[in-house]
Structure formats: C-alpha cells, structure tokens
C-alpha cells in the first residue's frame, strides 16, 4: 500500500484519531476507578445510602 507524496498528512490524521480516542478511553477508565475508590472509602467510614445498599451496587 503506497500512500503517495502526502503520506505524512494521512498518517498524522489516523495517528491523531488514535491518540484522541485513547485519551478518551483512558480518561473514562481512570474516572471510573477514581469514583469507585472514593465510594469504597466513604462506605468504609460508615456512610451508606438510605436503601442500605452499596453505592457501587448495580443489581
């Protein structure tokens, strides 16, 4: 596959898309870990929801 004289523009476009999508995924994964960690710390201190269920409970 030859990308011709403008290969740098094509490769940069795909690389930029990959980097931005990777940043989005990384941000969402780290945010999830951060929130679950904070909820766990609060529950360990005895702060619970009115329902009595864990704040991380999804069932």
């Amino acid at each position, binding site marked *: 596959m030859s990308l011709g*004289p403008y290969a740098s523009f094509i490769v940069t476009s*795909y690389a930029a898309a990959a980097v931005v999508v990777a940043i989005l995924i990384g941000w969402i994964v780290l945010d999830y870990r951060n929130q679950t960690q904070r909820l766990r710390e609060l529950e360990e201190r005895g*702060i619970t929801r009115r329902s009595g269920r864990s704040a991380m409970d999804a069932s």
Partner: protein
Amino acid sequence: MTLIDLANPTRFLALTARVLPWLAAATVLLLAIGLYQAALAPDDYQQGATVKIMFIHVPNAWLSMFVWGVMSIASLGTLVWRHPLADVAAKAAAPIGAAFTFLALLTGSLWGRPMWGTYWEWDARLTSVLILFLMYLGLMALWRAVDDPSRAARAAAVLTLVGALNLPIIKFSVDWWNTLHQPASVMRMGGSALDKSFLIPLLVMAIAFTLLFVTLHLAAMRNEILRRRVRSLQMMQASRVAFSSEIGPGARGQNASNEVGAA
C-alpha cells in the same frame, strides 16, 4: 426492561454492566474491519491516497453533529420530562462530542492542505463547525462552573437547545453559501455520489465510530452516576459532622444518621 425502568440509576448501572463488554467488542471488531477496508480502498483519480483521510474525517464530522443532537434530546428530557438520567446523559456526552469535533476539524485541516492548498479557510462549513467545537467547550465549562448538578442541568439544557440551531446551519452551509468545502456526497437527494469501493468502508467506519460513541457514552454516564453518589455521601458526611458539633461532644454519634438518599 422499559425506558421507565432505565429512569432508575441503579437499574441503568446494571444494564451498562451487562452491555458494555458486548458493545466494546463490537466496536473493536467493526473498527478493525473498517480500517482494513479503508487500507485496501483504491486511490481516488483526483485526490490520490489522501482520500483515505475521508474514512476518519467524515465519521467524526457526522458524530460531531449527532452527539449534539443526542444532547439536545437529553436537554428536552431535563426541561420537559424531568427524566432523572437526562442531564447525566447530556453532561457525559459533551466531552466525547468535543473530542469528535476536534478530530473532524483536525483531520479536515490535514486533508485540506494537500487538496485545497490551505489548512484553514473562514468559509461557512469550517467556521460553523469551529463554533460547534467552541459551544462544546462552553458547555463543559458551564457544567464545571456550577457546583450543584441539578442547577447546572437547567442552564446547560437551555444552552444546548439554543446551540442546536447551529446543526442545520452546518448541514446546509455548503448549499446556502459558496464554500471551499464540497457539498454533501453521501446523504443527498438522488443517492450517494461515492463509488461502492469508497462508500462501503466509509459506512463501516461510520457505524464503528457510532458504536464507539455509544460505548464511551454509557461508560461516562455510569461514571457520572457514581460521581453524584460520591457527592451525596460527602454531603451526608459533612452534615453529620455539623450536626455532631451542634449538639455537643457528649451526644456525638447518638442520633446522627448514616443514611443518604439513593442517588
């Protein structure tokens, strides 16, 4: 499970836990197929290999408008139906939409330099998409500026619906004004102007990016629900401390409740 059931954040979390792995797998599979087809697509007789930028630029450009459309429907959910997850959906979508819009602008610029001889031109299509990007950033700033999510939600919903007026301007800018950007070649009266060898990889990539958005959006909504639960518990903790100091150290812990609402 009905739409009403999904109004319950706990049920929504259960749903996302079940569907997110499948959505992620489908996204990866479709992206792999789309990238493979894009790599094998022939060169354009005029543009040469730079036509491959289209397979990444067009899906991002479509999504930049689609995400704002999703946020507009969610804003109606906030203002009209007061759906409990509507503002969660709107807030979670904004950074993802901003990222897709940024990519549409960047890849369009990188496509424009070899084809038009310039990275940027202040024509109607490019300028209206830049305005869309700035509106995404403005919305994100608004969400951060107001501490109480329910107060921020109303202001953000109004701003989102006003901003939706920009969507038809973006779509029809190439017809209404004489622009450097080409007119619509896929979704137009009389069918697509693209050859199948370009159209099929483009549609696969568009579906793959749409699935990517749905996956990221559901995951970001889950994070936002958890963030609000953290906030509720922290407020409960703060009120316990204040209550304990009011009634004095002797009574500390006797009457204070450990319970908060099911956010």
